[in-house]
């Protein structure tokens, strides 16, 4: 298990960064989707659901094509940072963001959808600007949606594997995440190690998740 420490740290780091960035990107997108009257809305909604449709390895394959140092994006990244996007932490983050997008956007949109205009109008009349309204009203009223979105994204990033494997290339300490390590154990018939790692992961997650849900147990239900 001790050999798994770098993988664990890397995985937590990746999941945290991905979730944070997706909060920042997904929130305005979900808000826009929940509020717009635009004709293109159904199309954009479909696109946000789409990253799930292709198997991870295949998405990874296309990301490899898209992000490689000779492709525009990859080249740009190399000139700016000096490092390649593929097989680096940055590449993993981009891949995870893309692949976890639906888990962030869709629950948020569901939560936003049920916030009535009434309260928002009241806040506006009390002098709250749109941004202020968002933070002081929409955010607390859709706390449960944020929790769901955050947890689905975080967990999905932890368990993610195909995309990360392809784009990251399994470099120990750099791109070898926990799920890859676990997969390796199973493939290499190191079942004992696989069992230990899987059990550890499950128990730890159960504790952490229970704690998070317990802290959130005062849901805003029954308020009308």
């Amino acid at each position, binding site marked *: 298990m001790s050999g798994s420490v770098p993988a664990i740290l890397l995985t937590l780091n990746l999941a945290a960064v991905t979730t944070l960035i997706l909060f920042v990107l997904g929130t305005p997108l979900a808000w826009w989707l929940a509020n717009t009257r635009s004709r293109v809305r159904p199309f954009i909604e479909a696109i946000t659901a789409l990253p799930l449709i292709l198997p991870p390895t295949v998405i990874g*394959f296309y990301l*490899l*094509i898209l992000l*490689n*140092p*000779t*492709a525009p994006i990859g080249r740009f990244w190399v000139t700016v940072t000096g490092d*390649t996007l*593929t*097989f680096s932490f940055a590449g993993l983050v981009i891949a995870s963001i893309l692949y976890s997008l639906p888990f962030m956007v869709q629950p948020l949109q569901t939560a936003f959808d049920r916030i009535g205009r009434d309260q928002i109008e009241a806040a506006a009349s009390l002098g709250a600007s749109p941004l202020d309204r968002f933070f002081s009203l929409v955010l607390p009223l859709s706390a449960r949606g944020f929790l769901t979105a955050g947890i689905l994204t975080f967990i999905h990033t932890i368990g993610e594997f195909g995309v990360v*494997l*392809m784009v990251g*290339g*399994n*470099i*120990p*300490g*750099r791109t070898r995440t926990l799920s890859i390590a676990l*997969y*390796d154990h*199973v*493939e*290499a*018939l190191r079942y004992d190690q696989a069992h230990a790692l899987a059990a550890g992961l499950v128990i730890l997650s159960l504790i952490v998740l229970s704690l998070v849900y317990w802290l959130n147990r005062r849901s805003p239900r029954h308020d009308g």
Partner: protein
Amino acid sequence: SAAAEEALIAVAANFTRPAEDLAAAFQAETGHTIRIATGSTGALYAQIRQGAPYDVFLAADTERPARLVADGLADADTLTPYAMGRLVLVGADTADLPPLDRLRAGDVQRLALANADLAPYGRAAEQVLDRLDVCLPERQRLRGQNVAQTLAMFTTGNADLAFIARAQLGGIGPSSASLIPADWHDPIRQDAVLLLQARDNEAARAWMDFLISPTATDILDAYGYGAAE
């Protein structure tokens, strides 16, 4: 009996295309039907242990079939090497030097190779690197879970050199390849075995015979597999 039967063959993913060609030839010759299920060798092994309905296992290594025999799931008498893999190093065809020379000269940013833990080609590649005494930092070594992924890293432009199987050369575009001498690494032997549950399956038995027939050897040769000794 002469009645045509059907067999389900579990094949290591990197052997998919040769297996399909072999199946076609086998079908033409015997009238038996072959269906192919692919997967990583490790996954196929785990599945077989859990009762997967495969008749024959074509592994990418020798270890997993041997273990199945030890597990009492495969017929020891049928354990057969069916192919010898050859390692090649590929690089862009625009370079002046052949890939192996570039590797020796350290003219490499990122080298793709298979995970030595999981794939015999990976272990072989590591042995070659040791032998050449190339010291490449870990972060420049990209590891695919198998040779297919290793190749994908190369074909998508993410690695400038890659150790792959010679059998894969047909699937890629213009590139230059250096064939690695077979004695630079342990032999990459791929074993096939008949599973005990298929003892009475005519098609499966016939397939095991067919694998070492000249027809099969010719097909494998064309793919670049050395004959099994």
